[in-house]
C-alpha cells in the first residue's frame, strides 16, 4: 500500500513562480523590461560608453547633423547629443527612483495606519492627503519648486510630496479590506502586536497594488521631471537633462530638428517601457490569473498522470 503524504503548503514560492510565469508570458511586458534594463544600464554606464563629455562646448562643431562622429548630432554649443541623452537619463532615472522610494516610504505607512486604525486617525490623515489631491500634481510640484527654488533636489522633493497621497490612498483601501480577513482576526486573538499584524499580514497582502503603483509613479516621475526641467525649474545648466534639452531643441525646430529625437525618444521609450512593465506586473500579481494558470498547469499535469503535492 502506498502512503499518501501531504507536502507543506509552498504558497509564497508558488505565488512567486506563478507571478513570474505570468509576467514572462506577457510579451509586451517582457520586451519592455528588456528595453528598460538596457536604458538603465546604458545610462548608468554613461561615463564608460558616452563618446564625449556631455558639457564640453565645441563651438566649431555646433548644430551638426547626425553622423559617424556624432550619432545623434550636436547642439547649439557643439555638445554631443548622444552623450547628453545618456547622462541626462541618469538624472531622470535617479529622480524617478528617489521619488518612488520616498513617496512609498512615507505614503505606505500613512495608508497602513489610516486603514488599520480607522476613526479619527483615518479621518485626519486622509483629509490631509485629500488636500494634496485637490491640486493637479504637476501644478503643485511646479508651485513647490517655485517656492523652494529651481534645483533637481527640490524637484525630487516636490514630486515625492505630491505622490505620497497616491500610495496612502491605495494602501489604506487595501488595508480596510485586509483587516477584516479571518487570519488578521486570528492574529489579534493570538495576541500579535499591531505593528506585527500590519507588517506581517496586512502589508504582505497589500503588496501587489503597491508594486503596480510603483511602476505608474516611476513613469509619471520621469515625465514630470522632464516637464519641470522643460520649464527651467529642474536640472540647472549645463547639466544634461531630457526635459531641458528638449526645451533648447525647440529653438532649432526648423534648423536642426534632430535635436528633438534623442531626448524625446528616450522619454518615450523609458515611460512606455515602465508602463508596460506595470501592466505586466498587474496581470502577473492578479490571483485570478493565477487560478487560470493553476488550472492550466493542473490539466497539463493530469494529462501526464502526476498529482502535485503527492508522492508515492
Amino acid at each position, binding site marked *: 500500500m502506498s502512503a499518501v503524504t501531504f507536502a507543506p503548503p509552498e504558497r509564497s514560492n508558488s505565488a512567486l513562480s506563478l507571478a513570474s510565469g505570468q509576467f514572462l508570458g506577457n510579451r509586451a511586458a517582457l520586451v519592455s523590461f528588456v528595453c528598460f534594463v538596457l536604458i538603465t544600464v546604458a545610462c548608468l554606464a554613461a561615463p564608460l560608453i558616452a563618446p564625449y563629455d556631455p558639457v*564640453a*562646448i565645441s*563651438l566649431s562643431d555646433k548644430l551638426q547633423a547626425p553622423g559617424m562622429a556624432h550619432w545623434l548630432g550636436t547642439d547649439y*554649443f557643439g555638445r554631443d547629443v548622444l552623450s547628453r541623452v545618456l547622462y541626462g537619463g541618469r538624472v531622470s532615472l535617479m529622480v524617478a527612483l528617489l521619488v518612488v522610494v520616498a513617496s512609498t516610504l512615507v505614503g505606505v505607512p500613512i495608508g497602513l495606519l489610516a486603514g488599520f486604525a480607522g476613526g479619527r486617525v483615518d479621518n485626519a490623515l486622509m483629509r490631509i492627503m485629500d488636500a494634496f489631491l485637490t491640486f493637479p500634481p504637476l501644478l503643485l510640484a511646479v508651485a513647490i519648486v517655485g517656492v523652494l*527654488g*529651481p534645483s533637481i533636489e527640490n524637484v525630487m522633493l516636490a514630486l515625492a510630496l505630491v505622490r505620497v497621497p497616491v500610495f496612502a490612498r491605495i494602501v489604506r483601501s487595501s488595508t480596510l479590506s485586509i483587516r477584516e480577513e479571518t487570519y488578521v482576526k486570528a492574529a489579534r486573538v493570538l495576541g500579535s502586536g499591531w505593528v506585527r499584524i500590519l507588517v506581517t499580514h496586512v502589508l504582505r497582502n497589500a503588496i501587489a497594488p503597491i508594486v503596480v503603483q510603483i511602476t505608474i509613479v516611476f513613469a509619471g516621475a520621469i515625465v514630470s521631471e522632464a516637464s519641470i526641467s522643460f520649464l*527651467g525649474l529642474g536640472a540647472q545648466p*549645463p547639466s544634461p537633462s531630457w526635459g531641458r534639452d528638449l526645451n533648447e531643441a525647440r529653438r532649432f525646430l526648423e534648423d536642426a530638428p534632430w535635436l528633438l529625437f534623442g531626448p524625446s525618444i528616450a522619454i518615450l521609450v523609458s515611460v512606455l517601457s515602465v508602463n508596460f512593465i506595470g501592466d505586466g506586473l498587474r496581470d502577473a500579481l492578479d490571483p485570478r490569473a493565477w487560478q487560470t494558470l493553476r488550472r492550466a498547469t493542473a490539466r497539463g499535469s493530469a494529462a501526464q498522470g502526476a498529482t502535485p503535492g503527492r508522492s508515492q
Partner: protein
Amino acid sequence: MFPTRRAKLFTPTRRSFLAGAGAFAAATQFPIPAIGQGKKDLVYGGFGAGYSNLNPLQRTDNAAGIIMRNVFDALVRPDYAAQRVVPELAVEWSRPDALTWRIKLREGVKWHKGYGEMTAEDVVYSWMTCLQDKCFQTGTALFPLESIKADGKYVVEAKMKQPFGAFPGVTMGYGGNIICKAAHQEMGNAYNLTPIGTGAFQVEQASSNEIIVARNSDYWNPNQPQLDRIVFRAIPDSQVRLQSLERGELDFISQPDTKDVEEIKSNDDLVYTSTPGWVWDYQQFCLKGNDGMAFQDKRVRQAISYAIDREAIVKEIYNGEALPTDYTIPPGFMGYKKGPLRYPKNGDLAKAKELMAAAGVSGYEVEVICSDKDWLRRELELVAAMVSQIGITYKIRNLDIGSFNNLWLNKNFQQHLEDITIVAPDTDATCWWFYHSQGNVTAGYDNPEMDKLLDEARASSDTDERIGLYDQVTSVALEDQPLVIHCNPNLIRAYRKGLQGFEPGPQANAEWFKDARWS
C-alpha cells in the same frame, strides 16, 4: 456630367468638414492683422516672466520699466540723438550756487483718474519717500541730496551734500519719475501695480503677466498720445514672442532671439530695428559676506576676465548684435573708448592660468545666479564652459527676476551674470553706483581711491577734467575687476509694418509710444 460634378462639389466629406472647421477655427483664433486706418491699439510682447511693480521708486526690472515709462513722465527725458536731456515735467533748472538746484515745473500737468494737478509737493514727496525708504534709486541721482523743499506750487529747490554737475541728467533715471502724493498715500501697496502717473497712458487693467494701458485724455501735450490702448504681455520665451508677432497676435516685440534676426529681416510685414544699447552684460562678485571665496583675490577676478572669450559671446549669443567690451562706459558716453581696453576680446587662457597660480587657487566651485532672460541663461552656460578651463566650476541657478533682484539688491549671492541698462546719459550713471563704496549695487567693493575719483568726477563741471577722472576710474576698475564686463548688446525690436512714430532708443527699459500711430 455637370450635375454630377456639382453634386460632388457640395458633398460634405470628413476631410472637407475638418478642413472647413480648421479654417473657421484659424479665422476666429488668429485675428487677421488689422493694419491701416482705424487701428488704434497696440499689442506688445515683452521679455521677462511677469510684471510685479510699476512704481518708479521701487521697480527694478527692465520689462516693467518699459510700461512704467509710458505711465509716468519724468522731470527730463533723453534726446538720444543729441545725447542730452530735454525738458519734460521740469521746464527749467538753474544752479544759483554750487550746491543748490532750482527746478521749475510744467504747469497744468494732471494726474491720471482725477487726482488733480502735479505740483512741487509731489516732487518733494517722491524724493523724500525715496530717501526715507532707502529705495533702489537712493544710490543714483538722489544720494547726494541734503534737503528738498517746495518754493511755491511749481518750483522745487534741492540742496546737495556735494557739488553734482550731472544732477539734471542723472534724474532722468527712475528718481526723476514723480509719483502722486495723494494717490500713493491713499492706495498704499496697490499703487505699485496700478499706479497713478502723469504719462500719456494710464493703467486700465493689471495682472502679473498682462497690463493694459489706455490713452490719457488729459495729457498735457494735446497731440499725444495717438494710440487708444496698449496691451503689454509678458512672454519670457523669445521664440514664442516672434511666432506670436508673425501670426498677428502681437504688433510689437522686444528682444527676439538673435538667431531669428534674418527671418525677421526677410519678413515683408515686419520692421526690424537694432540699436546699440546703453547696456552691458556682466558678472558681479559679491565681495560682502563671502569671506572665504577665492574671488576675494583680485587676481582670481582678473583670471576670470582673461578666461572670457568676449567675441565668442558676441557671435554665439548675440549673433553679432553686440560689441565686446571690458569696461562700463558704453558707446556715445563721455569718456568712451572702443573696447576691450585690457582683456583681449578672445581671452588669454595662459595669462588666466598664470594669475590663478599666482593667487594659489587651483580651482573652486561657486554659485552663479541669473535672471529669466533666456539669452543671458545661454550666455552663462557659455561663460561657465570658458571659466571651467581655469578650474572654476559655476554652479548655475536660474531665477525669476523678482527672486534675482531680491538676492542681488540684498547682497545675498556669491556671483551673478546679468545685463543692465544705464538709466541716464551721463557717465556718472555708468560708474558711480557700481563702483562707489556707497553705491547700493556695489556688492561690497570698497576702494577709497575709486571713491575719491568718482566723487571728484561727480563734483566737476569741466568736461575735460571729468573725462580724465573717468579714465582713471576705468583703469582702477580694470585692475580690481569687481565687475567683469562682457559686451554692449544692441537692442532689437520688431514690429508690424504700418506702425509709425516709434523711436528705437538705446535703453532696454524705455520704449515710448506717445507718438506711435498706425498709418
